[in-house]
């Protein structure tokens, strides 16, 4: 009753091909949009800075990996490094062109990441499955090594880390750097994530996205039907790395503020892979769910133990949080291997027939 598309007739192809063809979806999206816009006026700076902003950024990274793994079926363990490429190239760009708006530079830095992604995607034409996953580890460790050993990348800083300089834009608003306000950064990140996600949504439901899915479902059959594996796989690597690169640049410029090479270690890659798997392979909304879950769970656990009156050390909480995350991952894989996106779908189907149990 609540979520029912009956009676909504489409009378033109444009209406039929809309992103959200169902009225309830449009209403839902409008509500989510309003909430996202309203959050900064009610939430504390801590909530914005430590939860919402990284959640949005990591969602974008998860979407990036989901393109590659969920849509095109190429398993990758190198997302963290591709994020690093975005971050370091954005840092170099803003050092060389300090006057260009940082948002433009963030969007451009994704291109460098895309280029490197395509390079490391080349083996995917010959290597498949788990074997490919290991070759992406080559990208991960090699790029991580570059971040440490090429001092040009971090402007020969003695610390070996990159520190985000202060950058202003849109008149005189401080966008990055230590004195930027949490609200500004949240809005910038929100805007980028929304725009990019909409673009990606249109890519995956169009011709290119369908090619990716054909390659994923059966690459040989796809090839026989006229999909070029070269373009399909490499375009997936390019788009995926572009998104990871943009996410990485934002991660540094709008969230961390400074970063050592270890920020882009394999741990980050795994974290994002978990977001994709738990959220649901091949689902954009799932990427958001997964990011919220993986990013939010340790925070909730850390806040939860003192709230329960258990007085334990920070380190012990960290260990327990890790145990719980591991156990929950296994639990979720067992109960719902298709991820949170599948639960969402089931929920929608239930709402459709509500209040009756069956249609």
């Amino acid at each position, binding site marked *: 009753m609540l979520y029912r598309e009956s009676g909504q007739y489409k009378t033109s192809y444009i209406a039929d091909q809309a992103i959200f063809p169902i009225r309830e979806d449009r209403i839902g999206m409008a509500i989510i949009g309003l909430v996202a816009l309203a959050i900064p006026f009610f939430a504390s700076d801590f909530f914005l800075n430590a939860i919402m902003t990284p959640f949005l950024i990591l969602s974008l990274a998860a979407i990036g990996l989901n393109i590659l793994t969920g849509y095109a079926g190429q398993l990758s363990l190198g997302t963290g490094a591709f994020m690093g490429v975005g971050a370091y190239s954005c840092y170099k760009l803003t050092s060389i062109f300090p006057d260009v708006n940082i948002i433009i530079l963030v969007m451009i830095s994704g291109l460098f990441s895309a280029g490197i992604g395509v390079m490391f995607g080349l083996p995917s034409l010959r290597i498949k499955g788990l*074997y490919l996953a290991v070759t992406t580890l080559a990208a991960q460790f090699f790029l991580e090594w570059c971040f440490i050993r090429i001092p040009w990348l971090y402007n020969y800083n003695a610390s070996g880390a990159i520190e985000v300089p202060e950058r202003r834009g849109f008149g005189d608003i401080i966008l990055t750097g230590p004195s930027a306000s949490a609200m500004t950064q949240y809005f910038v990140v929100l805007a980028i994530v929304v725009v990019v996600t909409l673009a990606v949504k249109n890519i995956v439901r169009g011709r290119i996205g369908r090619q990716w899915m054909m390659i994923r479902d059966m690459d040989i059959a796809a090839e026989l039907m006229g999909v070029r594996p070269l373009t399909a796989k490499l375009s997936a690597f390019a788009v995926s790395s572009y998104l990871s690169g943009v996410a990485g640049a934002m991660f540094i410029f709008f969230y961390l503020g400074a970063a050592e090479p270890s920020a882009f270690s394999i741990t980050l890659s795994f974290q994002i892979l978990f977001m994709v798997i738990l959220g649901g392979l091949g689902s954009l909304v799932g990427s958001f769910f997964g990011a919220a879950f993986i990013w939010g769970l340790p925070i909730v656990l850390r806040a939860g133990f003192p709230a329960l009156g258990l007085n334990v050390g920070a380190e012990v909480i960290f260990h327990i949080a890790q145990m719980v995350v591991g156990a929950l991952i296994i639990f979720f894989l*067992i109960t719902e291997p298709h991820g949170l996106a599948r639960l969402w779908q089931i929920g929608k189907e239930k709402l459709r027939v509500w209040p009756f149990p069956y249609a």
Partner: protein
Amino acid sequence: MDILYAILVDPFVQMVELPDFFLQVLWEGFVAGVLYALIALGFVLIYKASGVFNFAQGIMVVFAGLTLVGLHEKGVPAYLALILTIGVMGLLALAVERFVMRPLVNQPDIILLMSTIGLTYFLVGFGEFVFGGEPKQMITTELGLPTGSTAFEIGDGGLLILQHIDIAAAVIAIIMVAVLAVFFNKTRIGRALRAVADDHQAALSVGISLNQIWAIVWFAAGIVALTTGIMWGARSDVSFALEIIAFKALPVLILGGFTSIPGAIVGGLIIGVGEKIGEIYWGPLVGGGIESWLAYMIALIFLLFRPQGLFGERIIERV
């Protein structure tokens, strides 16, 4: 020209000029390779029997080592601690089979891979929670493992120093592979294991219990992990920083193929020796530290020519 000389000629000149140093590097690489091979062996055991790519093998190595040292620290005698640790690995195998593998049977590969990464997280958290996060010293002497070293003279005045513990590691690895080979080929359970590896359903239909077999392979992998943990722990400290060696086993597997035990051994040795030689002779050209990724690059290049690994079964694809 200078660059070409530095890349193509100079390293070999160094090798010939200082043969004792070269042999030392070779030996170090060999020992590292043996340990990589041992980790890879654990992977192969589980992959063969259940098709699960067990990412947690590296962590099981650390976990086993940590349990052993941790028990000893709590006042348990060394040999009793060893037996207890074997017991713990057995319990772990049972638990993994019951709570992870059995509910996930017949799921796609990537889901199984993910579940073992989840297991990795769990074991890291659990191990640090119980035994603390700081690095520990392996109880080498208490276990009766040899310490000290022997020096051989080579050529005119060159020295080759072999640590006894490294020799022991190599010997134990060889014994272990031999025992596993006998176990796989001559015993009833070993045959059942191979049957399961060949075809799950056919194995089920002739009355082999999959659950039992899986528990056994996880236990066997646990024993391999314990051995590796002791050997690796004796060379450096026991801590979860060793996690990184788990990743090194992946290129080894790729080289050897996921299903081949000899492949794991040969792959381990190639990677171990290759990365040591690369690091010592070519590393300085680009600023050192290339050990962290050289293994993956070697594996990548091999894969471009043989996508199924050196000893892997030929991949035949059908639509």
